[in-house]
């Protein structure tokens, strides 16, 4: 636990140092008022901002999320989205793509040991800009719906048929013009899974996040975010099983006008499982998660 938090802060320090080194020279002579506006969708780490891109823009991204740390044994898993994203109108963004995963699990209670990489399935996302930011209104809101189909279970790596429907509200506010942004997400993610042994599992995750991101140079933002997540063994939220709080640093770097990356790290700092007095919730969530995404616009 302490090791997880400590490594998170070490990573934050590395993020900060890297960001400063990248653009320290360029920042000196400029003031934020003269910087170009920035797309807010990806500046908050795991929290998604309200941006939907610009009409006609197309983007290819590789977005990897790694998760590690269970109660015992060793657990490391990744899921990568190979994603095509486009903005057909000034209010809509559509994304779709394929999913791949890796699982390296050994000696974890209730999980079979495995070391495997696999094609997982596919996803699509529809984003609608409901409230747009203007120079008179710093607040912006986007509604997003993301159906996912998986043939490999995200946590265990077992063969399954899993259908997930992620629904989010992505909001952000420009606190200081071109400089400081706050982001907020609300998440409702029902899913149904049919296992190889013909069992049916219905569950849901509910959550919310808050993030701050500071633009330290025109192309670099650093920040931090907090997530509160609740898990239910029912899509109607009637069977609560546990919750967790995750905290961590975020980094966004725009390399060129058409290429950027994001990195984020979250550690679980508090959690509980129903019927279990142990610290943290490591049944439904993980000790740490990390995100690394590279995007190319064209």
């Amino acid at each position, binding site marked *: 636990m302490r090791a997880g938090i400590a490594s998170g802060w070490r990573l934050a320090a590395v993020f900060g140092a890297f960001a400063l080194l990248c653009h320290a020279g360029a920042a000196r002579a400029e003031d934020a008022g003269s910087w*170009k*506006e*920035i*797309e807010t969708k990806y500046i908050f780490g795991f929290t998604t901002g309200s941006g*939907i*891109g*610009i*009409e*006609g*823009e197309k983007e290819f991204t590789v977005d990897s999320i790694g998760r590690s740390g269970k109660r015992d044994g060793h657990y490391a898993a990744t899921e990568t989205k190979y994603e095509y994203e486009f*903005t*057909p*109108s*000034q*209010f*809509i963004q*559509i994304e*779709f793509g394929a999913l791949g995963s890796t699982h390296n699990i050994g000696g974890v209670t209730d999980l079979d040991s495995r070391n495997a990489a696999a094609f997982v*399935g*596919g*996803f*699509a*996302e*529809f984003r*609608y800009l409901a409230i*747009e*930011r*203007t*120079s*008179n*209104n710093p607040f912006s809101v986007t509604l997003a*719906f993301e*159906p*996912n*189909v998986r*043939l490999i279970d995200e946590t265990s790596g077992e063969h399954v*048929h899993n*259908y997930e*429907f992620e629904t989010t509200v992505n909001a952000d506010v420009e606190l200081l013009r071109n400089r400081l942004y706050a982001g907020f997400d609300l998440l409702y993610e029902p899913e149904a899974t049919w296992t190889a042994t013909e069992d049916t599992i219905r569950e849901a995750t509910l959550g919310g996040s808050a993030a701050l991101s500071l633009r330290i140079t025109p192309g670099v933002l650093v920040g931090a975010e907090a997530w509160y997540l609740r898990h239910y063994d029912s899509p109607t939220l009637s069977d609560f099983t546990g919750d967790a709080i995750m905290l961590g640093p975020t980094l966004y770097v725009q390399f060129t*006008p058409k290429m950027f990356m994001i990195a984020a790290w979250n550690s679980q700092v508090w959690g509980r499982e129903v019927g279990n007095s142990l610290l943290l919730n490591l049944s439904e969530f993980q000790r740490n998660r990390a995100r690394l995404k590279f995007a190319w616009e064209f």
Partner: protein
Amino acid sequence: MFYHMLTPIRLTLAAGCAVSLLHAAPALAQQAAEVHLTYSNGAFQPSEVRAPADRPVVFRVKNLDGKAMEFESKSLRVEKVVAAKSEGVINVRPLKSGRYEFYDDFNEKARGVLTVQ
């Protein structure tokens, strides 16, 4: 299995098209305000333009330079590459009052502002 995987993707695309049409219909019914810009020597002329609120805006950008430029704006949510010695037409939704920046994405220094009132 692949049929199941494609269904949510088809639904998402259909929903996207439906909402796009809903947004497009009222915009088409209103007469657009035209904004004329020229781009020469790496700068917009004029660099500050105005348009009425709640009406669609059409930018007509004449690129007089010998190389392509990309008219772009995050707040207007549009981009268009305008070839050398040619004109680009950019359609923008009805806008709320405010200040909207635009620029040439190929040239950091070329900037302009649309004020909507």
